[in-house]
């Protein structure tokens, strides 16, 4: 039976409701048609609009109302729907791929495999080791093999099903420790990177020694907006790709290389991003979309299903960590030994940088004179892992903070006292030999987080007890515990990488336009850029554009807590350059010295604030434009002993957790997390609070529920039914006890990036609190109900 033999060409199942007809050329700047304050407020309701004020996001109302156009809402006349065929096997040889039947299906306009790729077969952020389409082997379950474009998404799905691939499955390599000695699964070998860090006197011994092994499960970024985009071909062989991503230019370079096109013929535009958290650092659908569009000469749209999304992007590296801490009897740390194995999955992605972070930060924000750390990131047939909020700092923080609790126990010392005693400061050296430099208010964040008052005891309301709506709690089996943790992480890229940002400022009358390719993924660059303009140029009419990759240079990635610093810095310098020119123009006109003038609310004013000439009179129709490329101070690669000035700056954070544990059923409710964070300077209090609450909650998720379960290389729970993230009933009260504002001398406005830190120490703080409630060792996250229930039952009867 021919699938489409019936008279009607209408696809056979429920038609999807037509998406919002958003013309793609109006979707710059995250899906808004107009970014210059269409709600008539410039997004500055009730604020000065200056640095330090809670400027509201220009898309806040649209997002709250469901009116915001995400990349999955894109639509173009005559567009096709793309779909990818993925490997069901974690390891197999491909004996043949037969696309004939799929090609012949009416409405199917293209079926493409590796053989159709005109350029590079492989891509990657670091090493190019990941095939766009698998050719002779597949190395993980979910690896793309073919892509189709059809006139309807269901038809595309059926065409994918009609592709016949003859596999010869092999036994997958799924154990990261075995990967170190197992036969290579890739010509580049099984070890992405091994860092041997040796610092100080590695023979040093402490009076007190504590040892432990720790494990972190595979966390997913779990963003809401699935991978999606729209590619539109041009008759000159170029292509426009509207895409949700974290870094337009690095995507562009990889896509162009695979398409065999010069970069300027591939124009990437930022579409509305529904969350990122690292999962959009690697390209996922970009090459396939462009290739399908160029082949069919029609616009092609692709939207991952939730299951595909879980298979299609990288995850947080699962970790196995062994630690031995040495201390003097007074609690002074002597040495930290560690062996860290991160499972990088089938392809490299950013594994090399993640293991560098894990190794560099392995000892925590403490003064540790001697250290011996071996960090491995290895290749297996598990799903590829890469960037996620916290980027290597999360895994080791769970381990070193667990060790600090264990050490405090062994020393019979207060765990907060122990941390304060060893807290690093700006003149101390890290275990990489680098002097911390800048600002390092570690003791301050510890003290501030610790001093938060404890919440009221649990009420009898079942909804507020562990188990929540399931009403399975028994009040007298619920035990409260408290825990504490400190963490830190680098800001910006490290190890000699120059992750510059580019920005252009154009002032025309009292209207400023900022062009900067910084990907707005929800972090708030769009408000920050506005605030920088208002602060420096004194205007409130601001248009922010992310441009396309031909209009403006790279802004670097929206990751590594770097955009406020790097793109904020680029915008600041561009605005300052414009201000300088405007002031000298005004000085010429007014016949005064430029130093006597400044900009305020649309005017050039005198030193005592008297308006002298309006910006409209001065620049309308004669726009002043400046572009800058902003760099951070250079860093060095790590040497063969893992030593070197590899990082630009660091930020520090502490959390105190309060949990209620149903010790019998093993269920947990996190009641409160109080936190203090080293932020340098508060740029936008409301957005900062959002980062702190969101990051803290993501850490709660890793502590008690979030895990992508992989069995024999196959993801077991690729859905939001089974990949559990915290709901409102799981969310604790998050209390910010202090935002420590010690300006970083290198950072624009002194502000440190704030997006990742909250996700670092919240996990170990919660687990520490569960240990406090149960007396169990709990060396693995997420902590599962059976870990508590069976452990407690055993210890109770003993």
């Amino acid at each position, binding site marked *: 039976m021919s699938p489409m033999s*019936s008279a009607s060409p209408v696809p056979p*199942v429920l038609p999807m409701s037509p998406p919002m007809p958003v013309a793609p050329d109006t979707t710059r700047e995250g899906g808004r048609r107009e970014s210059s304050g269409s709600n008539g407020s410039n997004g500055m309701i009730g604020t000065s609009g200056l640095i330090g004020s809670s400027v509201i996001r220009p898309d806040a109302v649209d997002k709250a109302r469901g009116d915001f156009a995400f990349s999955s809402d894109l639509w173009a006349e005559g567009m096709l729907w793309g779909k990818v065929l993925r490997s069901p096997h974690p390891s197999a040889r491909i004996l043949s791929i037969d696309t004939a039947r799929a090609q012949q299906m009416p409405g199917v306009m293209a079926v493409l495999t590796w053989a159709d790729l005109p350029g590079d077969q492989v891509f990657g952020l670091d090493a190019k080791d990941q095939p766009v389409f698998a050719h002779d082997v597949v190395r993980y379950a979910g690896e793309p093999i073919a892509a189709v474009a059809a006139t309807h998404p269901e038809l595309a799905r059926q065409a994918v099903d009609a592709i016949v691939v003859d596999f010869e499955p092999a036994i997958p390599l799924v154990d990261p420790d075995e990967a170190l000695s197992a036969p290579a699964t890739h010509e580049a070998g099984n070890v992405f990177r091994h860092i041997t860090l040796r610092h100080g006197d590695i023979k040093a011994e402490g009076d007190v020694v504590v040892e432990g092994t720790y494990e972190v499960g595979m966390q997913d970024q779990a963003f809401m907006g699935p991978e999606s985009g729209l590619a539109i071909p041009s008759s000159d062989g170029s292509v426009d790709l509207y895409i949700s991503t974290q870094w337009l230019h690095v995507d562009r370079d990889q896509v162009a290389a695979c398409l065999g096109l010069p970069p300027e013929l591939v124009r990437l535009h930022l579409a509305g991003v529904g969350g990122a958290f690292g999962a959009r650092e690697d390209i996922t659908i970009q090459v396939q979309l462009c290739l399908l569009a160029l082949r069919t000469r029609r616009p092609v749209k692709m939207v991952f299903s939730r299951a595909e999304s879980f298979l299609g992007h990288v995850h947080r590296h699962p970790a196995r960590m062994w630690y031995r801490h040495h201390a003097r009897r007074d609690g002074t740390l002597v040495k930290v030994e560690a062996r860290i194995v991160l499972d990088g999955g089938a392809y490299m992605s950013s594994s090399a940088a993640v293991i560098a972070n894990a190794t560099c930060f392995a000892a925590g924000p403490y003064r540790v004179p001697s250290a011996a750390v071996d960090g491995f990131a290895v290749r297996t047939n598990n799903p590829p892992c890469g960037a996620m909020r916290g980027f290597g700092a999360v895994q080791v923080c769970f381990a070193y903070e667990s060790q600090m609790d264990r050490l405090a126990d062994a020393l019979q010392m207060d765990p907060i006292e122990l941390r304060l005693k060893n807290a690093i400061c700006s003149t101390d050296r890290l275990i990489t030999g680098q002097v911390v430099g800048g600002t390092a208010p570690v003791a301050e964040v510890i003290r501030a987080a610790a001093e938060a008052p404890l919440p009221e005891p649990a009420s009898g309301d079942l909804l507020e007890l562990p188990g929540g709506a399931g*009403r399975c709690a028994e009040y007298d089996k619920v035990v409260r515990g408290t825990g504490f943790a400190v963490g830190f992480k680098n800001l910006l890229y490290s190890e000699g990488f120059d992750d510059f940002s580019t920005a252009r400022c154009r002032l025309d009358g009292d209207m400023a336009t900022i062009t900067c390719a910084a990907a707005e993924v929800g972090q708030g660059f769009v408000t920050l850029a506005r605030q920088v303009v208002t602060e420096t140029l004194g205007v409130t009419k601001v248009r922010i554009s992310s441009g396309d990759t031909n209009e403006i240079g790279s802004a670097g990635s929206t990751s590594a807590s770097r955009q406020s610093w790097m793109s904020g810095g680029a915008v600041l310098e561009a605005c300052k350059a414009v201000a300088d020119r405007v002031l000298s123009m005004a000085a010429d006109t007014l016949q005064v010295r430029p130093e006597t003038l400044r900009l305020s609310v649309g005017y050039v004013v005198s030193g005592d604030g008297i308006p002298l000439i309006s910006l409209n009179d001065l620049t309308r129709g004669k726009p002043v434009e400046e572009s800058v490329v902003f760099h951070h101070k250079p860093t060095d690669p790590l040497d063969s002993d893992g030593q070197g000035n590899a990082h630009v700056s660091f930020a520090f954070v502490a959390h105190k957790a309060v949990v209620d544990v149903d010790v019998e059923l*093993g269920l947990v409710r996190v009641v409160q997390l109080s936190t203090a964070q080293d932020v340098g300077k508060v740029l936008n209090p409301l957005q900062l609070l959002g980062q702190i609450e969101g990051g803290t909650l993501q850490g709660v998720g890793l502590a008690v529920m979030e895990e992508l*379960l992989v*069995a024999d290389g196959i993801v*077991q729970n690729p859905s939001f039914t089974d990949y559990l993230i915290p709901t409102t009933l799981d969310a604790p009260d998050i209390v910010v006890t202090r935002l420590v504002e010690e300006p970083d001398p290198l950072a624009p406005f002194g502000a440190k990036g704030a997006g990742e830190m909250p996700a670092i120490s919240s996990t170990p703080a919660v687990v520490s609190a569960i240990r406090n409630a149960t007396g169990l060792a709990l060396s693995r996250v997420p902590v599962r*109900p*059976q870990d508590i*229930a069976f452990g407690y039952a055993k210890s109770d009867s003993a």
Partner: protein
Amino acid sequence: MATMSGIARPVSVEGVLDVLDEDPATQVLAGGTDFMVEVNYGHRKPQSIVALSRVAGMRTWQVVEDHLVIGAGVTYSQVMKEQLADLLPGLAQAARTVGSPQIRNAGTIGGNLGTASPAGDSLPILLALDALVNIRSKHSSRSLRVDEYVIGPKKHALQPGEIIVSVRIPLSDTSQEFLKVGTRNAMVISVAGLALVVDWKSGRVGCGLGSVGPTPIRASEAEAWLAGVIDWENRRIPDRDGYGQEFGRLVARAASPIDDHRSSAAYRSYALSVCGKRAYERIRRQQRQVLPGIVNGE
């Protein structure tokens, strides 16, 4: 492949039965909270659909003599509302554990039965309440107990042309408890669930288990043991050391759980025994005395 012939939206049960009589392959759509997930995953490819949302008669409940008849289209949110929740507190408790408010506004009791998942949250309490599933086709009608109706994991006893029109629950003087264990405090698929009903009027104990076997399970041995230790005359459940634990042990014995990505068989059995003990203690402490006023409701 045939093309989709469309969505029928009759306004009466008879209209639904006519559609199904004409084409028994027509798929029945209630709240869609399971149905649409299956469509999205490509597991369900309906050729034609009959939607129940306009059948007003299926969306109400009423008292008929000494029974409560709940239309198959009654939503979890309706079940949680006062009058129905007073009559069937255990069912209301179970309904509250289902999904999010949006899901509870859409999902229905009939749909939960239609999916027939071992993890269906309303099924253990319907089992414990001795509910009957009222089934009709154009030419026949019959009633099945829940354990007759669910015959395997996501398998039920409906014949082509048949739909569930309502469930019928005896009204009595009962104490009810529902407990569900999951790894999240809301919106979670049950790892183990337990419903306990003590019927003071008829001297009967009902205990239904969810997510611990291929179908919802009746813990008959535990029911019999508890019925034997209750002092029915004085409406007392004994406050004796080890009794709650023994009930929990018997409950867990009825289960045949599996290891899967949501939990382990060992934890499921264990959690069930804890829930059994807790349900026992709760009912012992509560012992509802008063039969609330009965009003028909929407």
